C-alpha cells in the first residue's frame, strides 16, 4: 500500500505539514485562518515533526500490516481497512481509553481532548481522495506518498 515516507535529509523542520494536517482535520478544512482562529481550541495535527536539530522529519501512523493498535482497541473503533490497508479510528466508537497509544510502537497516535476524549491519528486523508495534505504542502518534497521508501522526485 502507499504510505507517507519522510526524507530526513531535506526536511526543513518548518512544520507546515503539522499546520495543514491540523486544518484538514478541523471543522474548517478549507479555511486555514478560520480553522485556527474561529475554533476555541487549537486543532490537532496527526503528524508530528520529530526533531533533534539538525535532524528532523515528519512522523505519522505507519499503517502497519500487523497493526498493534487494532488488536489493542477495546471497542473495535480502531480498524485496518482490508482493502486499502488504511488504519482509522472510528471516533464515535472510541472511548478514549488510550490503549492504542500505549501499544503504538511509533508514538503516532495522539490524545484529542478538544471535545469528547478520542484517539486522533493519521487517516492518510482518505476522505479527500487525493494526496495526503502533509505531502501536498511539504515545501521541500521531504514527504512522499509512495509504495516503497527511497522514492525520489
Amino acid at each position, binding site marked *: 500500500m502507499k504510505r507517507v515516507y519522510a526524507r530526513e*535529509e*531535506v*526536511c*526543513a*523542520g*518548518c*512544520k*507546515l505539514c*503539522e*499546520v*495543514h494536517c491540523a486544518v484538514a482535520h478541523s471543522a474548517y478544512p478549507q479555511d*486555514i*485562518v478560520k*480553522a*485556527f*482562529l474561529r475554533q476555541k481550541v487549537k486543532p490537532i495535527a496527526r503528524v508530528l515533526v520529530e526533531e533533534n*536539530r*539538525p535532524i528532523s522529519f515528519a512522523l505519522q501512523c505507519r499503517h502497519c500490516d500487523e497493526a498493534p493498535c487494532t488488536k489493542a482497541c477495546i471497542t473495535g473503533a480502531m480498524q485496518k481497512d482490508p482493502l486499502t490497508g488504511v488504519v482509522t479510528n472510528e471516533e464515535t466508537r472510541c472511548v478514549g481509553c488510550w490503549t492504542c497509544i500505549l501499544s503504538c510502537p511509533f508514538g503516532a497516535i495522539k490524545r484529542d481532548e478538544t471535545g469528547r476524549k478520542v484517539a486522533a491519528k493519521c487517516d492518510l486523508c482518505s476522505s479527500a481522495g487525493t494526496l495526503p495534505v502533509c505531502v501536498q*504542502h511539504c*515545501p*521541500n*518534497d*521531504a514527504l512522499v506518498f509512495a509504495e516503497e521508501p527511497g522514492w*525520489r*522526485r
Partner: protein
Amino acid sequence: MPISLSTPNFLIDRNRERCINCQVCVRQCAFEAHSWDAEDERVVTDDLKCVACHRCVTFCPTHALSIRRFPLEFRENANWTANAIKAIYKQAETGGILLTGMGNDQPYPIYWDHLLLNASQVTNPSIDPLREPMELKTFLGRKPDTLRFRGGKLAEKLPPQLELEVPVMFSAMSFGSISLNAIKSLARAAADMGTFYNTGEGGLHRELYQYGEHTIVQVASGRFGVHPEYLAQGAAIEIKIGQGAKPGIGGHLPGEKVGAEVSRTRMIPEGTDAISPAPHHDIYSIEDLRQLIYSLKEATRYEKPVSVKIAAVHNVAAIASGIARAGADIIAIDGFRGGTGAAPLRTRDNVGIPIELALAAVDSRLREEGIRSQVSLVIGGSIRNSADVVKAIALGADAVYIGTAALISLGCHLCQKCNTGKCNWGIATQDPNLVKRLNPDIGAERAANLLRAWEHEIKELLGGMGINALESLRGNRLMLRGVGLSDRDLNILGVKAAGE
C-alpha cells in the same frame, strides 16, 4: 554600553487578522527576526534583525506577512543618503571594513538595457524555431588558423574543446561559499542540459566526481583542493586571477564555515580560515602565467582546455591579449556587477568596469591583433536573462557564465547576506540546519528549467533576426543598435546608434 545608532532597514508587517501563530516564520528565520512569546502565546518580531530575504513571507501559510522598507526618514539630502549615513554609524561602532555579499547594487548604467536587437522584415526572412532547426551548439577552446585534410579526413588533431548545448554555464562558486546541495543542484542541471558548472576555489567534493565531464575545475591563488585527481576529473581547468565583485582582492572563507567536508575537500585543517592571497605568488607577469598554463596542460596531457579568468578592469583588452598569447584556450571575463559570497563593500561598489564595455574592447582588440580565434571568450557579471545572453554573443562573446541568476533560480532573494553564513534559503551556508532546506532534486530541476527557458528564448530571438545558428551571431555587432548612449560609448561598443 553606549547606544547603537543602527536602525532597522525593513519593517515586518504582520497581519494579526490572518496570523495563526503557527510559528513557521519563527522556525525559518536564521536571523531570529521572529520569536515566540510564550506568555502571550503569540509570535513577535524584531524589525532590526530582518534582512528582507522573504523566507518567512514565502513560507507563511496564511500570507499574513509582508516586508516593507522601514519608514524612518532622515532629513532629505541628495548627498548624504541614508546608506551613506548608516555606513558611518556602523564603522564608528565597529572600526571595521564593511562586508557584503552578491554583486554591485549601485545605479551605474546597465549597457545591456541600452542595446537593442535587430529583426528581419521583408528583405530577409525570419525563421520560426518551432518549425525549423536552430543550432545553439558552442565549442570553447583554441581554434586552429587553418585545417589540413588528408584523404578526406582531418590531418591534425584539433585542440581540446568544450562542447556546450546551450551557450550558458554556471560560474565559479566554491564549496564553502555555497552549500554542497547548491553545487549538486547546479552540477546536475549542467549535466542535464549539456553545459558546465565551475568548482570555484573550493575543490571538488567526492560526491561530485560523477559530474566530472560537466565540471570546470578552478585553480586559484590559494590552490585549495588542487591535486592530480582533481585536475583529471574536470573537463577543463580555469586559472582564477580575479573576480568581478572584488578585483585585486583575494578570498577569505572564515573558519566557522570550514567543517569536516569543506576541510577534506579543500585539504586544510577543520575550523581554520581559508585565505586566498590577492595575487598568485607565482604569477607576476604574462610569462609567469604562461608557465602555470603549460604546467596544467602538461599535468593533464594537453587533453583539457585551460581557461584564465580575470575581472574586467581598466586595461582589460591589453591583459586579455597577453593571456591569449600566454597560451590560454579560454578567457573568462567577469564584469563589475559579478556576485560574490563576501566582499568589502567599497571594493564591490567602486572597482572594475562594466562587462559590456570590457567585452567589446577585448573582442575588438583580439580581432585587430588577429588572435581572436586562438581563444574563446566567456563573459559573466550579471547576465540577467536570455536577451542579455544574445546581446553578449552579438558583442563578441562565445558563451556566458551565470552565477547570480543561477542562485536566484535556486531560491536566492538577493538579500546580500551571503557573508553571514545564515542563508535562509540553504544556498550560501554550511549550517547543517540550513543546508538541508535546499533539496538538490528540486534545485537541479529549477536550474535546468532556467536554462531550458533561456534556450527557447534565444532561439526565438535568433529566428527573429533570420539567423539559424548561434555561430552566425557571434561578434555580429550589426545586429545591435545603441539607444541613449554617447558617441564615445557607441564607439567602444562598436555599435551603431538606433536609427543609423
